[in-house]
């Protein structure tokens, strides 16, 4: 069986966490953008 060494696991977790944070920030920015577009299209 292929076992990932603990130091690799820690690095994978770190990368996953940083990707999750960036994804959340992008999604948050898109929510704001879509809201602003909705207002702009109504004007």
């Amino acid at each position, binding site marked *: 069986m292929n076992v990932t060494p603990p130091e690799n696991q820690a690095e994978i977790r770190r990368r996953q966490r940083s990707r999750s944070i960036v994804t959340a920030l992008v999604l948050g920015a898109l929510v704001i953008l879509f809201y602003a577009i909705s*207002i702009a299209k109504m004007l």
Partner: protein
Amino acid sequence: MTMASKAFSPDMSVTAEWRDFLALTKPRVLSLVVFTGLCGLLAAPVSINPVLGFTAVLCIALGAGAAGALNQWYEADLDALMHRTANRPLPAGRMDRQSALHFGVGVGAFSVLLMGLAVNLLAAVLLLLSILFYVMIYTVWLKRRTPQNIVIGGAAGAFPVLIGWAAATGRVEALPVLMFALVFLWTPPHFWALALFVKADYTKAGVPMLPVVAGIRTTRAQVLLYTVPMVIAAVAPWPLGLTGAIYGVGASALSAIFLVLAVRVGFSTEGDATLMKPERHLFAYSIVYLFATFGLLVADKALIA
């Protein structure tokens, strides 16, 4: 390559860093694309709602980034062979190819849909065409088959100014078409100046760039030949009455310097890549030239208005 990616086994590559996804979009190329798109939008005679204008530029950036990602997905084998590109996420083993493909297709589709829904249909169609042109015509079809790859591929980089203008006006008119021609004709001297002093890389990778296939002397002549119509396209908006004197005088001066540098390249006989100063000067100046010319276009419109 980062220390982390060096230190771990290949199974680590499936968990790429967010920075690697950003690197897939070729941020340096993106800056020029975003700038020309923004200038196309700002130079248009119709003003656009700032939120929609921002959305249009964002879509241009996302579309160009997606095209860059798909280019890197397709060319990972070539990139691994060239010193300049060997550290990109795919050849360096920091990301798996499927992630790059999904990222490119997903971001590209999103950019076109958002442009169509938020801005207008013409801008969305032009954005879709530019992505398909860069990926299918340039990357897949031409790059490995013909030394004219850069000439045709240059059209992909010329689209943003048309898209920016179309986003603001909903039309395509003479001025953005001339600016499209400027970027289209600027691309061969720009890339061939680079290809002359990194010829060894292209030879190693088997890419049929002009210096590899036709030789250094022919490439230098072609750099000079393409510069002449490029200068005409850059200056033409002024006598045609499409811009004012600010653009006309500025673009004439900038183009004259470009022409002088291209003449130096055209008549150079240096064969050693490390000593090719005129080529390096032209390559560096060509980037400044495009930024400055498009900046003048916007300044001209803003000052006349």
